[in-house]
């Protein structure tokens, strides 16, 4: 441990922060939500269940946590990662005290909600985990920080270390990295599917055991109370959207994950085994995956309803919910004043909040289209699929092409239908290579799960 602490000589704190932030930025998770913890009147920090964004970087992503690596030294050679050992770039390592001081001073100034600490593999997984543990231990016990902490569990590390770290963290994550074992084998020769799933399972059982313990003893220490998350890289390997979504679904079902994050692949290493992506990272795919992910978690959809083997890619023009609705016109229109919540949730333009508000508001009086607007329903998209007291808002044809034309905005409409092409035919071209840019507005709505 001592020799490690002597390592970082010569670099200023600013240089280290720059290097180790730059090295951490491709990890997309930056939320601080899911944990409600009041202050104790003495120590610094609390945690707000809704999560708080403190700033937004020039790529439009939320800055909520001090997201850094403890070190970008790494003995592994993952081909997609800029920190791989064969890459020649400046290396740096924080001391645990430096991480703690930065966290405390940033937090006091309200720059951040807390810390997201990850690391390259220094020497071996257990050694690295030990460093993460020591840093968190210091932060919680010496610096007495009560804010949010997200930490990576390092696959292959001593389980006992992972367990002890879990009692200091609000969230833990192990990155799946690539959706399939084959992809992992091709691009991350030192990582194995099994060694990734083992700590995931361990954290899952830890959370479950802790829940039972807390039910018995209210004062028992909390273990990863904000749940577990993971990240999948999209577009580095040839898996389809359908495969990725199925992986996500089984992670939610079998590993009780709180969140799966999708990261559009950015080719930073220029490795020949990786796609060059001249059109930039596959942001539309990533966007559609996030939309589908909301549908799985909050709208009662199953992955198999959204995609299948024959249609393994998301639609370019329509979001997954619109696409589902257009392919299931037999389920519409839905009568807003009577339909159960589950049915309302399937209407494009009615989000989770608006669906709940509809159910509450229609108890007092039958709702009209004007009321729906007040409630927050996006009528522009919902009109095709709903009636109020048996009436459509205006006569619309319940017919695929007409609806798609109405749902897509002007720019996309030109591509569709210009030479007599129907929506069905066009869908055949959704093979994952056909793309379009994602507008800022869409991305914003996507981040909030408004579908």
């Amino acid at each position: 441990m001592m020799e490690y602490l002597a390592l970082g000589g010569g670099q200023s704190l600013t240089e280290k922060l720059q290097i180790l932030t730059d090295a951490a930025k491709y990890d997309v998770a930056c939320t601080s939500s899911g944990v409600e913890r009041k202050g104790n009147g003495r120590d610094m920090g609390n945690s707000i269940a809704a999560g708080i964004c403190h700033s937004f970087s020039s790529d439009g992503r939320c800055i909520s946590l001090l997201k850094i690596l403890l070190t970008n030294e790494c003995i592994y050679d993952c081909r997609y990662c800029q920190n791989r050992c064969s890459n020649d770039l400046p290396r740096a390592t924080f001391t645990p005290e430096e991480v703690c001081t930065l966290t405390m001073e940033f937090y006091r100034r309200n720059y951040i909600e807390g810390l997201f600490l990850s690391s390259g593999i220094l020497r071996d997984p257990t050694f690295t985990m030990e460093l993460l543990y020591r840093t968190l231990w210091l932060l919680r016990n010496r610096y007495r920080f009560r804010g949010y902490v997200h930490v990576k569990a390092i696959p292959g590390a001593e389980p006992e270390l992972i367990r002890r770290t879990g009692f200091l963290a609000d969230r833990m994550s192990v990155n799946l990295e690539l959706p399939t074992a084959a992809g992992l084998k091709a691009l991350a020769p030192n990582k194995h599917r099994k060694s990734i799933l083992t700590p995931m399972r361990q954290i899952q059982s830890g959370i479950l055991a802790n829940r039972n313990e807390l039910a018995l003893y209210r004062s028992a220490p909390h273990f990863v109370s904000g749940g577990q998350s993971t990240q999948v890289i999209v577009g580095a390997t040839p898996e389809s959207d359908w495969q990725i979504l199925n992986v996500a679904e089984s992670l939610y079902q079998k590993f009780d994950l709180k969140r799966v994050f999708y990261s559009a692949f950015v080719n930073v290493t220029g490795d020949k085994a990786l796609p060059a992506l001249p059109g930039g990272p596959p942001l539309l795919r990533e966007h559609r995956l996030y939309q589908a992910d909301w549908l799985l978690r909050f709208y009662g959809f199953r992955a198999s309803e959204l995609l299948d083997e024959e249609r393994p890619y998301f639609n370019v023009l329509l979001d997954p919910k619109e696409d589902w609705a257009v392919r299931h016109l037999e389920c519409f229109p839905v009568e807003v004043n009577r339909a159960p919540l589950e049915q309302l949730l399937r209407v494009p333009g009615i989000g989770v909040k608006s669906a709940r508000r509809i159910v509450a508001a229609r108890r007092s009086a039958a709702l009209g289209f004007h009321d729906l607007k007040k409630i927050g329903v996006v009528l522009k998209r919902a009109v095709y699929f709903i009636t109020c007291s048996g009436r459509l808002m205006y006569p619309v044809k319940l017919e695929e092409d007409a609806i798609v034309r109405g749902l897509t905005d002007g720019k996309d409409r030109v591509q569709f239908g210009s030479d007599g092409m129907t929506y069905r035919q066009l869908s055949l071209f959704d093979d994952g290579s056909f793309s379009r840019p994602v507008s800022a507005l869409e991305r914003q709505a996507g981040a909030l799960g408004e579908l």
Partner: protein
Amino acid sequence: MLIYLCEDSLEGVFSGIYKAFEEKRDKNDTALALQEEPLLFAEYQSVEPDADRTRRVMNTLLRRFGEEDALSLCLALSSEDPGKAQAVYGTVADGLRRNCRPGHLFDNLAESTVHKAFSLARAAGRELHHLQGFVRFEELEQKVLYGVIGPKHNLVTFLMPHFADRLPMEHFLLYDAVRDICGVHPAGAAWYLQKGSGERFALPGAGGTLRLSEEEKQYQTLFRHFCQAIAIRERYCPELQKKMLPLRYREYMTEWKKQS
């Protein structure tokens, strides 16, 4: 029509509501306003703000409508909308008449008064949530933290408990430069508000005498570097950044200020 004329504050409006219920007014023949307007057939009656009555109204709201909805009513009153008093009064009267369960005060969104109060509360809540993240404290001499905001809603009273809970042992000031109100939190003690404090709560640049600490500059630089390094160049999208972090907040934020 009887119109109670209230002071533009939470106390003012709550005291008005108290009066309307004390005198068992019919809500269809009663209104609350902040300013006298030339209305025919309206009789105006001024209401003095009263701390005790405010507390009693607050307790009733909490008991009948639950914490979340009571907070929403307070948030609606932080708005600058001239119709806020009437919207809140109408919503409370509607809720009491319906005998609604806690958490269901705003169910009746098709009703325009309820919808108005709901919209006001939602807009205020949004800004409050933004500011919980966007407030920036700078460290002054003697380790005092100092933040300045210029919000659309009157939110210092809502922000102070939030920061007092997370920074209990810090001295901090949160100054609303638009309304000239300052929240003061002495370490380990209860916070309070000071009105009309003006240049007493300003840095030299803004005509005041407060001085930054030695270390402050270093942390500001560190944070600026952090914000730049965390962005992914290949995903550059300033429009999205602007949607998520509207320009009006930026003049008060460390990472957007020009380095002095």
